[in-house]
């Protein structure tokens, strides 16, 4: 009985330990100073601007084709 409870305790504590470990390591977006979040935000804005440019480019190309 004592052995069993000890094993159980060990098991539970290991799982808790592992869980704590897992939450800490969640992912890079949440780690060290959260610089990756800033990178993501900048990349989003940049992608938006580039998509806008590409759409504008295609619109002008279409107008040029209509003219001919």
């Amino acid at each position, binding site marked *: 009985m004592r052995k069993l409870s000890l094993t159980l305790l060990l098991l539970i504590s290991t799982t808790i330990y592992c869980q704590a470990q897992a939450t800490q390591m969640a992912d890079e977006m949440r780690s060290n100073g959260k610089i990756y979040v*800033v990178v993501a935000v900048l990349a989003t804005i940049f992608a938006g601007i580039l998509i806008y*440019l590409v759409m504008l480019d295609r619109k002008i190309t279409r107008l040029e084709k209509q003219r001919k």
Partner: protein
Amino acid sequence: MRNWWWKIVCIVLLGYTVVGGLLMPVPRLDILNETIRNLYFHVPMWFTMLVLYGCAFVYSIKYLRSNDLKDDLYAVQLTNTGIFFSILGMATGMEWAQFTWGAAWSNDPKQLGTAMSMLIYFAYLILRSGIKDEEKRAKISAVYNVFAFAMMIPLIFILPRMVDSLHPGNGGNPAFKQYDLDSNMRMVFYPAVAGWIGLGLWIASLKIRTALLNHEEEQMEFDFEK
């Protein structure tokens, strides 16, 4: 999209600049700290401006030789985009200076020279808007643009280097030497410069094509009225 390949190169390079520019290792310097990363964004603004003004200068000379209004249109739109990048460069430079030199404006020789060349280019646009006749406007502004470019080079790139300045590369202060641009930074800096110049040319090309469409439309109305 016309001639799409260089636009894709530009997108890839700038994507790399944004991500690599923030995450790649940089030298640890006092005062500058992490702001050294601004080098990938602030300095290419000026290089892009220089390339755009250079192209505008070429087209102004071409106009004076050919008298083709299309060359004038190219010169104006390239200058417009160049002015846009110079404003971005000035704004980012002032933000950077506020937190490293202690003040946004410290009458640094390079700041003053740049401000003067910006005023010269603003005057170019004002000069154009003041002349009604198309041919006269094109000719006078082409001559002015040649002088503006010839003034911009010494104001930004020669005079500030002959006196003491806070900018690197001035007053016997070496630019792009190991101390402010190590091999890690070069790996981001050169692609960044190429990418930003590409973006500037892309925006300019869109403005030129829109203006050409307008120009053709006016031409057609003019022929119709005849």
